[in-house]
């Protein structure tokens, strides 16, 4: 009985669990990446114990891939040496950690997964309770297979109606953030439901679950259903629903009346309608990230780029979320479309999102990104500005060299 979160913990611990309880729970997998992994490794070594289960520890090189400095190469080497020493075989360098966690089958409905990255909330799209942690917590999980949780209360968000042209799950999430504020779900879980979510593909749900942390959420969950089953296959899909849940807060969003939403600098909750910021000059457009770097996102952008040229005054950078996404985009001709349109296509990974490897912004520059964070300094200079938008707005803006409405291009 309870919310999706309470149901998952109840099943996992074999006793009724209610929000507010503090529990020590076993997890399915613990993930860290090339920047958080080394700190986790150093904390783990202080414990002086064997690793819990090398097959349930996952490392992904994605934040700085391939290494662009000697220091970054050192972090990678530290992770590789640890993996070799402790027999960790799941070491990947083919895309963003969150995309790989889902693609490689580590995420199952009803599961509990922890990651040393805040966007580990992404796996909730498949009905898995997943949350981001710091390196020390992950180190303790490497050693014990467990972590502690204060089981969170839940905000239920129902997304009503169908999505009008030019409006995507990104806009629904930004509208929620606009209403609830950047800490609206702090310490809370979020359930995403309603007919708009029921109609969504898993790729779209991953966008919602991903952005849950950007208004403070500990986890962002969708009920597993026929879309989940189609995505994962029958194996591992369980019957999991909220049962007489008591919610902390109910939120409804009417998708049908929404226009594209733009998170303006310098905060995720500084959200405006597209029409308010149209015409804003852009130096860079970035399409990618764990929020909007999947094949459906690239399909949207390729649709707008076909037969057109990106604005010569704007750097347009496309980064597929994973090798699998990249190769699918190749097979469908999207990569050729991007390159013929004048975009730069980079290797799968986090790309310019966090200003650490390429596509870095200089002082006074302005970017529009399909990613999830627009804090000052996120993508480079603290004097640069970042706007966050859906992939269609990104495509139209790349063509125009300024923030533009994709609905005018159809």
């Amino acid at each position, binding site marked *: 009985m309870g919310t999706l979160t309470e149901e998952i913990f109840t099943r996992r611990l074999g006793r009724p669990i209610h929000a507010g309880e503090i529990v020590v729970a076993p997890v399915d997998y613990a993930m860290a990446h090339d920047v958080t992994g080394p700190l986790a490794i150093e904390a783990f070594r202080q414990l002086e114990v064997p690793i819990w289960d090398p097959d349930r520890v996952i490392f992904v090189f994605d*934040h700085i891939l391939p290494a662009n400095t000697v220091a970054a190469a050192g972090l990678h080497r530290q992770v590789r040496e640890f993996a070799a020493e402790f027999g960790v075989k799941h070491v990947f360098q083919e895309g963003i950690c969150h995309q790989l966690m889902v693609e490689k089958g580590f995420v199952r409905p009803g599961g509990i997964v922890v990651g040393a990255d805040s966007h580990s909330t992404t796996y909730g799209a498949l009905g898995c309770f997943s949350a981001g942690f710091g390196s020390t917590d992950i180190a303790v999980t490497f050693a014990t297979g*467990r972590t502690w949780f204060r089981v969170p209360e839940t905000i239920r968000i129902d997304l009503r109606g169908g999505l009008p042209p030019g409006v995507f799950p990104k806009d629904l999430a930004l509208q929620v953030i606009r209403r609830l504020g950047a800490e609206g779900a*702090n310490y809370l879980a979020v359930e995403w439901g309603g007919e708009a979510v029921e109609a969504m593909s898993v790729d779209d749900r991953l966008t919602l679950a991903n952005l849950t942390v950007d208004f403070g959420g500990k986890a962002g969950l969708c009920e597993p259903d026929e879309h989940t089953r189609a995505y994962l296959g029958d194996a591992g899909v369980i019957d999991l629903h909220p049962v007489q849940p008591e919610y902390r807060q109910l939120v409804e969003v009417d998708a049908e009346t929404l226009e594209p939403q733009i998170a303006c600098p310098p905060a995720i909750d500084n959200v405006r309608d597209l029409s308010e910021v149209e015409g804003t000059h852009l130096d860079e457009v970035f399409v990618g990230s764990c929020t909007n770097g999947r094949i459906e996102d690239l399909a949207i952008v390729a649709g707008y780029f076909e037969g057109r040229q990106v604005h010569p005054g704007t750097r347009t950078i496309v980064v597929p979320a994973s090798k699998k996404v990249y190769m699918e985009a190749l097979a469908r001709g999207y990569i050729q479309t991007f390159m013929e349109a004048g975009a730069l296509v980079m290797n799968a990974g986090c790309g310019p999102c*966090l*200003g650490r490897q390429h596509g870095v912004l200089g002082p006074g520059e302005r970017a529009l990104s399909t990613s999830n964070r627009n804090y000052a300094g*996120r993508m480079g200079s603290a004097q640069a500005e970042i706007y966050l938008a859906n992939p269609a707005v990104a495509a139209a803006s790349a063509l125009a060299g300024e923030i533009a409405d994709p609905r005018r291009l159809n």
Partner: protein
Amino acid sequence: MGRVFKFGDGISTDAIIPGRFNVTTDATALGKACFIEARPDFATTVQAGDVIVAGRNFGCGSSREHAPVAIKAAGIQAVVAQSFARIFYRNAINIGLAVVQCEAIYGAVQDGDPISVDVRSGRIDVNGKMFTGETPGPVATAIMEAGTLIDLIKTRGWAAIEEVS
């Protein structure tokens, strides 16, 4: 007795330690880069025992533990904020950086004010006024008493947390 370094709302981990500066696990290097762009004189002017007083949602964004490590290494004794982002709060407790949630203090202090924070009791003395921070939860208290999460788990294992849950 330390001095107040006052910050506003929504201070992100990107502001505390930008992505380009956390390509290391060395605490000293992280401390030198703390707030390097948001407040470039921070690392060079902080003295041991100084205190950050901030508004809402301190430490929002990335889960990078480099952020509390950098603040602690810079010499900050405690961060007092109106609210903390969940992951930052937990990370700070885990590595032994004192964090105190207190709503009322924010409007009552200015940059540079002398301040003392008693982490255990949550008592804060500043400008002749006394404030009391919110009592941390039982797990946070257990970790603080041990020093760090690693200290707690190494000496007592999960039993230490199971017995307060």
